[in-house]
C-alpha cells in the first residue's frame, strides 16, 4: 500500500462515521434478470429468496423484454462489443446516428447527442453552453447530477423554491441583466414523484426571455399520452430548449443518456461537452437495444397505459389500507412514515414478507420526511400488487401506522 497508515485510519474512520449516521449503503445481490419478481441475496451470504420488486426504475418493464434482448444480441453480433474510442475519433457507428435521430423524433426536438449516462449529460451540458454572463435558476429539488453539472459551469447559480412559480418569476425579473437566463428543473422529481408545472414554466420563460432545461429521466417513455415525457403531459412539446434524459430507466434500463433540443445547443455540446469528448461511446449492444425500445414504445401505448393503471391501482390499494401517501400522478408512490427508524423497520419487515422496497430518511430526504419509495412498472401484474398490499397491510398493522396521518405518526413515533 502506498499511503501511510494514518491515511488508512482516517479513511476507515470516515466509513465508520457513515455507518454510525445510518447512511451506509449495502448492495443486495440479485440472482435474476431485472423484473417484477426477482431473487435477492440479502444479507450477503444468505440464500437468494424470491421477492416482488417495487423499487426499480423499470417503468415500462422493458429491462428484460424478449424483443429488447434479441435486439441486443443482434447488435452484439453485427456491430461488436466495444468501440475502444470516443465518438469523435473512431467511436461513431451508423447505429449511433440512427439512435440520435430516433430520439430526436421521439422527444420532438431538433437534434440529440448521446452520452454514456444522463449523469454525464448533466455534467457536461451547462459547462458547454453557459459562462459567467449567464445565470442558471434551478428548482431547489433538482437531481444531484444537475447540481454537479451546474457547479462545473462558470455561470451564476441561483435557485427557486420547489415548484414555486411566484418565486421563479421574482428570480427571472431579478436577473434581467444577464445575457441568458436558464430555468432548470426535473420533469418528474424522483423523491416525491411530483411533476414540474412545465406549462407555467414555459409561459414564464417566454415572458422573461429565458431558456428552459428539463431533466426528464423519470418521465421519458411514459409521461404524456404517447409517453414522450413531461413536456407532452403538460402540452409544451417543441417549447423546451434542452431536454436531458436517460436510457437507464423506462427506455430499457441499461445505461446511456442524451442531450436533446435546439440544434445549435446540441452542436455546441458535440463540440465542447467534456463527458462526450473524453469518454467512450455508448456500446453498440445498448444502442441496438435502445432502438428496439423506441420502436416498441412508438408501436403502442399499451405499456405506458398499463403503468398508469398500475400506479392508480396501487395508490388506491395503499390509500384503502390506511397508508399516508404523497399525492401525485407519476409511478413513483412514496409511502410516508416521517420517522427514520420506523421507515427502516417497515422496509426490513416488508423484505421479510417478500417485498423489496427501500426506506429513505434524512439526509437523503428532508428531516421528518422519512418514507418508503415505491415504484410501479408495466411488468407488474395485478396479482403482484395484490400480494404486495397484503404484506404492506400486515406490516403496517404490526407497526400501528394504518389510518394515521402525519401528526398522529409523529405523535406516536417522533421525528
Amino acid at each position, binding site marked *: 500500500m502506498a499511503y501511510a497508515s494514518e491515511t488508512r485510519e482516517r479513511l476507515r474512520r*470516515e466509513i465508520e*462515521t457513515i455507518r454510525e449516521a445510518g447512511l451506509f449503503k449495502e448492495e443486495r445481490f440479485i440472482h435474476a434478470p431485472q423484473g417484477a419478481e426477482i431473487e435477492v441475496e440479502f444479507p450477503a451470504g444468505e440464500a437468494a429468496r424470491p421477492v416482488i420488486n417495487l423499487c426499480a426504475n423499470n417503468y415500462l418493464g422493458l429491462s428484460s423484454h424478449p424483443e429488447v434482448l434479441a435486439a441486443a444480441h443482434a447488435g452484439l453480433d453485427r456491430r461488436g462489443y466495444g468501440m475502444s474510442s470516443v465518438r469523435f475519433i473512431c467511436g461513431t457507428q451508423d447505429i449511433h446516428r440512427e439512435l440520435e435521430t430516433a430520439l430526436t423524433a421521439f422527444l420532438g426536438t431538433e437534434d440529440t447527442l448521446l452520452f454514456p449516462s444522463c449523469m454525464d449529460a448533466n455534467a457536461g451540458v451547462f459547462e458547454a453552453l453557459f459562462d459567467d454572463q449567464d445565470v442558471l435558476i*434551478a428548482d*431547489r*429539488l*433538482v*437531481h*444531484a447530477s444537475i*447540481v454537479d453539472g*451546474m*457547479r462545473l459551469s462558470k455561470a*451564476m*447559480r*441561483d*435557485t427557486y423554491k420547489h415548484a414555486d412559480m411566484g418565486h421563479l418569476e421574482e428570480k427571472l425579473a431579478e436577473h434581467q441583466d444577464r445575457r441568458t437566463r436558464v430555468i432548470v428543473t426535473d420533469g418528474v422529481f*424522483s*423523491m416525491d414523484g411530483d411533476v414540474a408545472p412545465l406549462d407555467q414554466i414555459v409561459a414564464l420563460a417566454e415572458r422573461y426571455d429565458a431558456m428552459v432545461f428539463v431533466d426528464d429521466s423519470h418521465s421519458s417513455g411514459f409521461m404524456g399520452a404517447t409517453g414522450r415525457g413531461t413536456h407532452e403531459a403538460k402540452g409544451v412539446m417543441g417549447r423546451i430548449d434542452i431536454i436531458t434524459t436517460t436510457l437507464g430507466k423506462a427506455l430499457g434500463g441499461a445505461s446511456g443518456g442524451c442531450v436533446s433540443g435546439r440544434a445549435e445547443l446540441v452542436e455546441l455540446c458535440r463540440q465542447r461537452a467534456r463527458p462526450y469528448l473524453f469518454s467512450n461511446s455508448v456500446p453498440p449492444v445498448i444502442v441496438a437495444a435502445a432502438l428496439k425500445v423506441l420502436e416498441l414504445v412508438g408501436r403502442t401505448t399499451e405499456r405506458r397505459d398499463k403503468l398508469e393503471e398500475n400506479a392508480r391501482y396501487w395508490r388506491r390499494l395503499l390509500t384503502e389500507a390506511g397508508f399516508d401517501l404523497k399525492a401525485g400522478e407519476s409511478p413513483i408512490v412514496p409511502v410516508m412514515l416521517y420517522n427514520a427508524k420506523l421507515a427502516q423497520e417497515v422496509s426490513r419487515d416488508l423484505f421479510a414478507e417478500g417485498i423489496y422496497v427501500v426506506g*429513505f430518511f*434524512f*439526509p*437523503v*430526504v*428532508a428531516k421528518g*420526511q422519512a418514507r418508503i*419509495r415505491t415504484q410501479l412498472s408495466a411488468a407488474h401484474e395485478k396479482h403482484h400488487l395484490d400480494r404486495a398490499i397484503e404484506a404492506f397491510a400486515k406490516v403496517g398493522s404490526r407497526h400501528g401506522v394504518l389510518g394515521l396521518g402525519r401528526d398522529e405518526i409523529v405523535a406516536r413515533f417522533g421525528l
Partner: protein
Amino acid sequence: MVTARVEEPPPSAEAARVERELAERGWEVSSHLLWVTVARRGGEAEQAEGRTREEALARLVEALRLDEGARLP
C-alpha cells in the same frame, strides 16, 4: 446597501511578470480581489466567492440550498 470594499494594491514585480507571460501566450489576464466565504459542518464544506462580502454570502446561500436539498437517485 453598504458593502466593504478594499483598495487593490498595485501588482508586484512577480505578478506583473506572470501576467506578461500569460499575455504572450494569448491570454487576456485580469486580477482582482475577491471575498471568499466558507461554510463548514462536520465533514461538509461549501465555498463561494464574490466582489463584495454580501455577493459572496448570497452565492454561498444558493450553493448550500442546492446541497441541502433532499436527493434520491
